[in-house]
């Protein structure tokens, strides 16, 4: 399982970077989105993959039994997903406004702030 997750995360990172290096603004957004997902999956995976042992304490017990799944990476990923969602939607709107203001979605044409 771990090896599949590692391959999947690697593919996500590389696809994200590849898309970001394209000239199209929309592909840039998709690339960033994939990078965020790769990071989320990375946190989830290195936090330890545990199958079917939820971190729940039995009624009356003080602590859950040992070897349960670590809940913290899930909380971190949940936070990161929410933030990532907000930023991606902002970026999508920004890309639309950039297109309206400049009339292009080619990042190579957006050079007027450089010189």
């Amino acid at each position, binding site marked *: 399982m771990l090896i599949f997750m590692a391959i999947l995360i690697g593919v996500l990172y590389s696809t*994200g970077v590849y898309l*970001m290096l394209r000239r199209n*603004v929309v592909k*840039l957004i998709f690339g*960033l989105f994939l*990078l*965020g997902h*790769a*990071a*989320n999956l*990375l*946190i*989830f*995976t*290195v*936090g*330890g993959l545990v199958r079917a042992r939820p971190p729940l304490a039995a009624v009356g017990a003080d602590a859950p039994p040992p070897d349960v799944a670590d809940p*913290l*990476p899930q909380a*971190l990923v949940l*936070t*990161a997903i929410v*933030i990532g969602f*907000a*930023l991606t939607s*902002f*970026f999508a709107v*920004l*890309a639309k*406004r*950039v297109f309206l*203001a*400049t009339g292009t979605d080619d*990042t190579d044409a*957006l*050079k*007027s*702030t*450089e010189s």
Partner: protein
Amino acid sequence: MNQLVVMPVLIPLACAALSVLASRSARAQGIIGVVGTGALLAASILLLRTVLEHGVLALQIAGWPAPYGITLVADTLSAIMVVLGGITGFAVAIYALVDIDADRREAGFYPMLHVLLMGVCFSFVTGDAFNLYVCFEIMLIASFVLLALGGERMQMEGALKYVTLNLVSSAIFLSALGVLYGLTGTLNLAHLHQLMPGVAAEHPDLVAATAGLFLVSFGIKAGLFPLYFWLPSSYHTPPVAVSAIFAGLLTKVGVYALIRMFTLVFGDLEGAHRLLLILATLTMIAGVLGAVSQYHIRRILSFHIISQIGYMVVGLGLMVSPDPDVRRLGLLAAVFYIAHHIIVKANLFLIGGIVRRLRGTEELRDMGGLYRQMPWLAALFLVPALSLAGIPPLSGFWAKLSLFRAGLQAGQWVVVGAAIAAGVMTLMSMIKIWNEAFWKAPPETDATAAITIEPLDRGRLAVLLVPAVGLAVLTLLIGLFPGFLFDLAGRAAGELLDPTPYLEAVGAVATGGAP
């Protein structure tokens, strides 16, 4: 007493909410802006005084003990940074009364200004690595909106680059956090400090790789060579008030994060400090060379931000030296430099904005004759400009002096040489602005139509001048009485090198409880 730590976060949050409620009245929003940032400044000074009196303060959010809950910690460095945030916020809120037009005010300038300050102050007081990520995101989303607000073509292009690079930096930061958690099982900074020696002995390669991820992520935010290209292509596009607060605070949050991470968590990683020292040296030179070729006021100033970031990180990079004296002096210089730089750089942007309004352009070639018209404005510009270049007796001189001393003691001749060269070129750049904007005769052709701006009457000019004069006075005060800031920076450096008070304040971690 410990509740004071959360005030720099709560005050801007409350002001942001009030500003949203008052969104129909630009006047009310302006008043909330000035009073709220003033209250933030007052609370931050109180925090600094309390920290100086009682030592490091820590607050466990919702009473969850560290390392399980989120801890807010204010040591001397945090408190100094929060005060600087308050000063910049207050100055910019006054300046914005005139500088921000009605459209931008209606579109939500003030709420976003407060949210930005909240994110910045939150980053300074948080004691948890993941919380630091969240604070960065709060700060970023507010800065995205401030940068894009108004929707001019240049702004949109600048915003696209700024947003992209900062989101890449966030993704790298998040990945680094994931690996760090996988390695150590904690994200509390104090707890990380305690676990790191054991983990580093077990997995030196993984720790080095994680440190590298943090370095790249914070390096992008701080504007380190070769990761700074987003900065000069975006900082000159928004209104001057927005530029000024970005220039003063945002990159310094990156520098703060670098200092915190590479003393508290990766304090013993010599390779990382060596890399930081090399990158910082290149940053000083690359930034100042970029500025030499520019003729646009805010672009020149933007490149100088990069160059100055180099100076600060040199102070951190001197941690390569095994000599504790050099380490202490280097960190002292870095903290002193940050304090000096935030005040001076925000002020230069504010004065640049006044020049822009008087001349209707930011192109130096189209300016001139301001000295004849307003000799006092020329004098006002010289205070931060010469301070930036490090001319005694202004604040920049002491900052550079302590850095050179640390560098010479460490025997880093190349670094000190590069710093001196960058200082000379900074002086050239500042003289260029002074010559072109103030001294030379205005050009024959009438180029005033480049930027259309409403004319500036006396009252509005006075409002713009208040924060600029205030910051200039602060620069002079630091320059004439540097002892106070030296003591503060020395104390901050001492706490960074020996974080025992920090660890004790966070408490409960002392047992090293397993995650």
